C-alpha cells in the first residue's frame, strides 16, 4: 500500500539565522519509501524543495542562512512516496521569527562578595550561547535564573531581563545552593534548556548585621 502521510513534528531555529524541520514518517507498508520536503513562501507561487536533507540528520531538512527569511510565512509539506503511490503531510505554517529556541547560556560563574559596609552578597555572571549573535543586535536575549537550597524542593525563579549579571542579597547562611540559568529571545520563541547545575556554599557568617 502507499505510505501513510508523514507528520511534521517540529521546526526550530537556534540563533535566528538558520532553521531545521523534522518529520515523523507514517507506516510505510514495508516498502522502501522516499521523503520529499516541499515549501513555498508567503506571496510567492513558486514551490521549492528542501535545500539540505543531511546536515540535521534523518527525517529532517536544514535551511541555511541563504534559505532562511524572517517575517514571512513558510508553507511546508512532506511527501512520502513508494512504488504503490505517495501521500502528503498536512501543511505546516512557519514564521521563523516565532520558532527561535536558543542554546543555554554558558560560562556561569558564582562569586561571594561584600558591599562597602561589609554586607555579603552573591554575584552570578554568565555569557550568551556562542551561536547567538547578540553583539550585532540582530538577536536580543532575556534571561531567567532559578535557585534552590540543595535539599530544598522548590525552585525560586527570577526574571533578570537582558542583563548577564545578577546580585543576590537574601541567601540563607550556611546553606548550599544550586543555580541554573536559561534564556529566550526578547519577544518570541521559547526558553532554552537550563544551563548545567552550579553549586555555591554560603558561609555561616553570611549574616546581615543585627
Amino acid at each position, binding site marked *: 500500500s502507499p505510505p501513510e502521510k508523514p507528520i511534521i513534528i517540529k521546526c526550530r531555529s537556534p540563533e*535566528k*539565522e538558520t532553521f531545521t524541520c523534522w518529520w515523523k514518517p507514517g507506516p510505510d507498508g514495508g516498502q522502501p519509501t522516499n521523503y520529499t520536503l516541499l515549501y513555498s513562501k*508567503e*506571496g510567492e507561487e513558486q514551490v521549492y524543495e528542501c535545500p539540505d536533507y543531511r546536515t540535521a540528520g534523518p527525517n529532517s531538512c536544514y535551511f541555511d*542562512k541563504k534559505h*532562511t*527569511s*524572517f*517575517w*514571512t*510565512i513558510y508553507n511546508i509539506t512532506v511527501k512520502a512516496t513508494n512504488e504503490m503511490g505517495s501521500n502528503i503531510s498536512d501543511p505546516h*505554517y512557519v*514564521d521563523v*521569527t516565532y520558532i527561535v529556541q536558543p542554546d543555554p547560556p554558558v560560562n556561569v560563574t558564582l562569586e561571594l562578595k561584600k558591599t562597602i559596609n561589609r554586607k555579603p552578597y552573591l554575584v552570578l555572571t554568565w555569557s550568551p550561547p556562542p551561536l547567538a*549573535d*547578540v*553583539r*550585532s*543586535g*540582530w538577536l*536580543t536575549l532575556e534571561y531567567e535564573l532559578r535557585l534552590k537550597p540543595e535539599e530544598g524542593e522548590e525552585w525560586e525563579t527570577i526574571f533578570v531581563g537582558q542583563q548577564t549579571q545578577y546580585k543576590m542579597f537574601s541567601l540563607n547562611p550556611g546553606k548550599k545552593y544550586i543555580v541554573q540559568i536559561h534564556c529566550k529571545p*526578547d*519577544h*518570541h520563541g521559547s526558553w532554552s534548556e537550563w544551563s548545567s547545575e552550579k553549586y555555591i556554599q554560603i558561609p555561616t557568617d553570611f549574616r546581615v548585621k543585627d
Partner: protein
Amino acid sequence: LPICSNGSVNCQVSLGELFDRAVKLSHYIHFLSSEIFNEFDEHYGQGRHFIARAVNSCHTSSLTTPEDKEQAQQIHHEALLNVILGILRSWNDPLIHLASEVQRIKEAPDTILRKAVEIEEQNKRLLEGMEKIVGQVHSGEVGNEIYSQWEGLPSLQLADEDSRLSAFYNLLHCFHRDSHKIDNYLKLLKCRLIHGSNC
C-alpha cells in the same frame, strides 16, 4: 541632568540617549501589539481560521525591507532609518482608524479598546523620535519619501461581521509583524551606530 550651561543654545538629547529611548519604546509598542493581537484572536478568532486569510495581506508588503541578518547588516544605516520611517508612517493612518473603529465592535473588551488607543499614541511618539534621530544622523531635511498607502478603512466597516472581524485580524497581524521589524531594526542600528556593533 544633562549639563546645559545657562544661555547655551545647543543643549540637546544625545544620539545615544535618543536610540535608548527609541528602542525602549519600540520594544514596548511590540509588546502591546502582541497583547492586543493575542487577546483579539482569543476573543474573536477561535475556529475562524483568520490566519489563512491574513497571509500576504499586509499593506506594507510593497515596502522593501531586510528579511534576514545579512540583508539588515549590509543595508546602509541611513537607508535602514528610512525603512523604519517608511513603516511607521505607513501605520499612522490605519492606527488612527483602528483606535476608533475597534470601539464599534460588539462587546469588545475594554483592554482591547485601551490598547488600540495607546498603540496609536505610542506609534506617533516613536515617529516623532525617529524624525529627531534622522535629523541628527543626516543633517539634511527629513524627507517625506517612502511610505505605503492604506486603503483598508471600508473593510473595517463591512456589514458582514465575519468579514469585518477578519479585516481587524489582518490589521493586527500585520502591525504585530511590522512592529517587530521596527523593534529589531532599531536594536540593530543602536548596536551599530552607538556601540560599534559590539552590544
